[in-house]
């Protein structure tokens, strides 16, 4: 069970949106990180056959994405802005997707129970909250028991509790299958994924384990406490990741390619977010 991406390219007219993407994705949860417009959604759409690649190829379990029908049978997809027909009931929505997927839908009760929507099976979709709709989206994506589940920013707009619930669901599924999820929240990747790819301007600038990504920023992350007025001067030394005010002073997390010589600067452990920022700001080697 694997996805092989070879020199994938996607252009919209003269504009190159994906450039020479090569990666191998195996079982487990794979995170796609990148800022808005980096090409995450485009890559995902290519993977789920909604967009034709302009160059290169993708193989899923040895099947080229040119064979759309076979690929569609083995994938489940939750788009970024998932919604469903508001006048349909939750149960009918699942039955509708089952009919589209060519499956009987015998697993609908089980899936609705898993996503905690069984009690609302007779409710119309329009009465569901944003989090519930997202869970319905996951349930519909899992209906045909796909080998590969592609979820595009599944937690955007959700409260922390719903986010956790969604990641638990995906994590459980990823034990046996491939789950590809895209997000621009690095913390989510750290909590859920084993492998990660970082996209920037249509190029894959990192592809590997989360651990290796974190290592990229090792020794380059510092915590600095400086007076409020001197906040701007930090730009001369490195890239600011985060800051917190405590009245007189500002606590800052800073990425620096070189040793930070400011008094009070303390080197600290790097995170996925640090590494991600280091990659995007070309602070890594």
């Amino acid at each position: 069970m694997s996805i092989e991406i070879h020199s994938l390219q996607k252009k919209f007219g003269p504009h190159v949106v994906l450039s020479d993407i090569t990666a191998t994705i195996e079982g487990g949860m794979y995170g796609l990180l990148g800022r808005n417009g980096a090409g995450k959604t485009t890559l995902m759409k290519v993977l789920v056959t909604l967009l034709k690649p302009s160059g290169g190829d993708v193989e899923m379990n040895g099947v080229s994405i040119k064979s759309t029908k076979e690929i569609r049978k083995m994938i489940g997809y939750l788009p970024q802005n998932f919604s469903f027909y508001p006048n349909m009931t939750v149960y009918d929505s699942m039955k509708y997707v089952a009919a589209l997927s060519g499956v009987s839908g015998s697993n609908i009760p089980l899936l609705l129970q898993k996503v905690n929507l069984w009690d609302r099976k007779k409710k119309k979709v329009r009465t569901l909250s944003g989090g519930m709709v997202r869970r319905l989206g996951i349930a519909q994506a899992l209906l045909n028991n796909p080998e590969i589940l592609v979820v595009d920013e599944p937690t955007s707009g959700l409260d922390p509790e719903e986010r956790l619930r969604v990641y638990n669901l995906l994590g459980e599924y990823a034990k046996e299958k491939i789950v590809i999820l895209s997000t621009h929240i690095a913390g989510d990747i750290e909590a859920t994924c084993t492998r990660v790819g970082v996209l920037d301007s249509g190029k894959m600038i990192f592809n590997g384990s989360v651990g290796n990504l974190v290592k990229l920023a090792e020794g380059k992350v510092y915590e600095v406490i400086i007076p409020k007025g001197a906040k701007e001067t930090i730009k001369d030394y490195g890239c600011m990741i985060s800051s917190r005010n405590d009245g007189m002073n500002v606590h800052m997390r800073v990425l620096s390619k070189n040793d930070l010589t400011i008094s009070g600067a303390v080197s600290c452990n790097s995170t996925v977010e640090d590494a991600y920022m280091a990659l995007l700001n070309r602070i890594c080697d």
Partner: protein
Amino acid sequence: MRQLLMLECKKIAAGVIYWLFVIAITVVFWLNYGNVDREEINNASDTSSLFYCAQDGHYAVEQNNLSKKSGQNQAMIGLTKKLLDCYKNNSYECYPFGYIKVKVFSKSEQNIVLKYLREITGMDKDKILSSTGKTTSKEPEDTENSEELSGSEKPEDSKETSDSSEIGISGGGQYISKPGTGHMNEAGQYEFQPDEWEYVENSSDSAGEKEKADSKEQDDAKTSNNSSKKKSSEDFLIQVSFQRFMEIMDKISGMIGRNSYFSRALIDLYYGGNDMENSPVTLKQHEEFYNGDKITGAFARYYCDNIALAVLILPVFVITAVMAGDRRNRVMDSIYAKPVSSFKLIFIRYFASVGMMFVPILLLPLKSFIILAKYANAAGDAVDIFAFPKYIIGWILPSLLFVVAFSLFLSVLTRSSVSVLAMGIFWIIFKPSVGKIAGGNYELFDIVIRHNTLKGFGRMMQHFDMLVINRIFITGISFLFVLLSVWIYQIKRRGGLSFHVREFICYRKREL
């Protein structure tokens, strides 16, 4: 497949647009068809009702057929009077897209009309201008009615016909209508059977007859308070043959625009048959109604006509809502990524939409069928119990299939509600011309078939082959559009034929 079809139907039925369609088609039905069945039954004693059964077996005589001299003369008189009226008021009506349009001629155009009027009537400009202009704008109908009324109970109107009983033609002779015969029937109605027109040379005999007719007119003028002026001013003689007259009409029609009163189609409609609502029933029509239509057939045909124009536009809203619903509810990507084939999905949606819209169309005339069946049962007449479904399937369904298919195609192609606008334009352009409302003159590309009269079974049967070819053709074209929709949908499912605005904006932002 059945499950998907059922769910699509359920989805359509859950939408507001569908119920608005049902309400709209019901309103159209009530406004146009309404209680025509009851009215026709209640007026069974009226000679114009199809339920009229003459006790003595005497029905109205076939008349006004343009292939007969009498009909030709009738048409020439009526049209000349109408043209005089139009000329004097400089107001020429036509129905280019089914709606009335009044055209005002320039001086040079008026001169052309004057030239033709002089040719037709032989009158000079002053006489033309002083001739009556009091004839109404519905002159052709009035003329026809006056003819038919001359056979019923309106002696004053029938006098108008007698005014027109002398028509001069080039060649020195003239047509003279021989006096008809009339009698009271058992129902207490006066029945009149006009005699044939006769061509008479300008001999002393004819002159004598003319004198007689003149003196009769003078007598009538004395007894009638309001007709003396009118009669004298309407006294014109047609100076041209029917062939030349029609050539002139073609030219005038060309000047006015599509579907003027002087167009061939409208001349045929008003003067070519006996199927106007108020025309008394002929024996042929009586037999066609009871033996051909078996009562319900006539009403089924009339029902189909009454909802035909609604079928040409209303379904577009339903199918557009179905297709636009994917985009509006952001389910497009979810559906696109499913294994279902585009062929299956599009055809199922197509049939679900057609089916859901067909149900109310099929059920609406049920009440009419029950009324007619009860009446026929009481009278011991046979009815065609399948007439309504037969006509609805054969007559309306192809139109519905086409409109839904074309709208589906536009919706898939544009992924927007522009299809509603496009169909609106389509409706204006392809709405059948006024000349087709009486039916019979079918053409291959007619999307809807008109037949705005309970009569005319014979005319339909006369052109039945063309009707069948048209319906099959329209059905075939419909499926072609559905196949095209499948093809476009398939391309779009893989991101083709789309300008990716979002991706482009993201790219531009990144570039900046």
